[in-house]
């Protein structure tokens, strides 16, 4: 903090670093202190803008996060003084002024306060009274590091549309008084399931992209994994938190092998296993082990275990499909769904022969929930083809192709259809 003027690019780098590493933490602290999402966000934005000038003039502070927190709180006080329409304005001003009179930022040095603040924010962003797309957008915006524009591109909607969605969610939080706290013990398991669902949805949107640009999608996967890591730090005693993180890491490890250099989709059994990220796999397996040690089985752990079996086999033929079929059975008992039943049918088909698989799959063909579900027809085709019914397989492939919204996936289905003839 000498009188020297800092070089502009060093200051920019420090601000970028503070934005990436500290913004979400500062925001969480400030939301608790001001009790209002929008006000806190605006004030944090103001503080980062002020940092550009002040840090360049006075040097980068020793603790950038604490500086931003103090600056943001002062901006919040200014904004509150100007805005008469905020509810409980006087109480909030008094509390903020009291905090401002303290000499240091106690919360910045207190790990448990940071954890509590972020945890509260997780439950607010993933509150069931917000519509799912808003939960996803808010989580990425507030807890992740994505801008509204990036989220809009990732979900293929216009930026103003995404902006409105986020603004509306924040307004509902304020107007309906969606609380900013960790739910009570009796509600916690249910609400935590809801949080994990939001994170998994973000990951899936990136991983199982049905359409759109690959690059932005990868960003969603990275962001979901970061959120999963955050949750595992915040709630290390929950087995499913680790299960979900393991599942995402194990899927993500195969990211590079899922699409070939020309952009074509590559099915699991045809993937170049040397492209799998072994570090990520080890990391995923370690998280899964940690989950299993807590002895509270759940759907994400089961899915991660299935993925682990697929990955650990030397090749597709040597995969323990019987064990996978059993895990799908357990998953179906826990969370009955036609999609899980479909996966079980495929595993049984690979373990015990196509006839056994087809027997389980046949009833699903009449399920209205799966009527437009492309993977059902692709799996049907695969099993028919393995059973020697090329004509039936061709019909099923055609159905799958007609339902596919992803060019890479469609090309793969067309290749398989061509291989039948």
């Amino acid at each position, binding site marked *: 903090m000498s009188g020297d003027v800092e070089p502009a690019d060093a200051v920019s780098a420090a601000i970028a670093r503070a934005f990436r590493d500290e913004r979400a933490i500062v925001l969480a602290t400030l939301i608790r202190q001001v009790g209002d999402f929008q006000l806190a966000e605006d004030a944090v934005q103001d503080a980062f803008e002020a940092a550009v000038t002040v840090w360049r003039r006075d040097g980068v502070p020793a603790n950038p996060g604490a500086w931003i927190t103090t600056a943001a709180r002062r901006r919040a006080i200014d904004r509150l003084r100007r805005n008469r329409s905020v509810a409980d304005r006087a109480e909030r001003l008094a509390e903020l002024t009291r905090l401002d009179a303290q000499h240091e930022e106690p919360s910045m040095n207190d790990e448990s306060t940071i954890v509590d603040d972020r945890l509260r924010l997780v439950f607010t962003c993933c509150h069931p009274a917000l519509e799912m797309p808003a939960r996803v957008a808010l989580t990425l915006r507030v807890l992740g590091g994505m801008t509204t524009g990036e989220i809009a591109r990732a979900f293929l909607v216009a930026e103003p549309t995404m902006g409105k969605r986020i603004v509306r969610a924040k*307004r509902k939080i304020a107007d*309906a008084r*969606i609380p900013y706290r960790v739910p009570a013990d009796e509600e916690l398991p249910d609400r935590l399931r809801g949080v994990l669902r939001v994170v998994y949805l973000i990951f899936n949107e990136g991983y199982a992209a049905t359409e759109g640009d690959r690059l932005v999608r990868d960003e969603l996967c990275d962001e979901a994994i970061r959120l999963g890591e955050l949750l595992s730090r915040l709630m290390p005693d929950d087995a499913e938190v680790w299960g979900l993180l393991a599942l995402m890491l194990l899927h993500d490890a195969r990211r590079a092998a899922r699409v070939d250099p020309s952009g074509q989709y590559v099915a699991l059994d045809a993937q170049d296993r040397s492209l799998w990220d072994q570090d990520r796999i080890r990391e995923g397996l370690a998280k899964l082990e940690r989950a299993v040690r807590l002895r509270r089985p759940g759907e994400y752990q089961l899915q991660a275990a299935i993925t682990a079996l697929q990955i650990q086999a030397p090749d597709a033929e040597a995969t323990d499909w019987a064990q996978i079929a059993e895990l799908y059975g357990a998953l179906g008992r826990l969370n009955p769904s036609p999609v899980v039943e479909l996966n079980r049918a495929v595993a049984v088909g690979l373990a015990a022969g196509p006839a056994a698989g087809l027997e389980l799959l046949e009833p699903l063909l009449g399920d209205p929930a799966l009527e437009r579900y492309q993977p059902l027809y692709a799996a049907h085709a695969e099993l028919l083809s393995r059973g020697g019914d090329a004509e039936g397989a061709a019909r099923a492939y055609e159905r799958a192709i007609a339902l596919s919204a992803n060019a890479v996936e469609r090309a793969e289905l067309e290749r398989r259809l061509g291989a039948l003839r």
Partner: protein
Amino acid sequence: MSQYMLLVYEEEVDPAEQAEREQVTPMLVELHAGLREAGLLVGVQRLRSTESATSVRVRDGQTEITDGPFAVTKEVLAGYYVLECADLDEALKQAARLPMAPWATIEVRPVMPPDEWLNTARRAGVDLSDEDVRNLA
């Protein structure tokens, strides 16, 4: 004497048109004061827009919470509660406890506090005194 509930239904409009509607607020202040004086007014509250609504149902023993107001189908309004709650979670919890929740939908709408009602009208350019808030609601 009998009690009657007057339910106000309106289309939600854009901010410009809403600002025009706020112009009736002085008439409301006067009307409510008159009704109160005549001993007719039991209570009046303004609700926040449906953007802040949440619907609660209990089906197969599970509480279902959805964002948004109740979509009108063949169900009709059968009654109402006004609860004082710490936050939305408390309100949703109480809504799910209603014995009608297994067949009904409970739309949970935040009530706009009287001073905010006043401020909403003021922002639309209506001239009102702080005293008016006592007559308004």
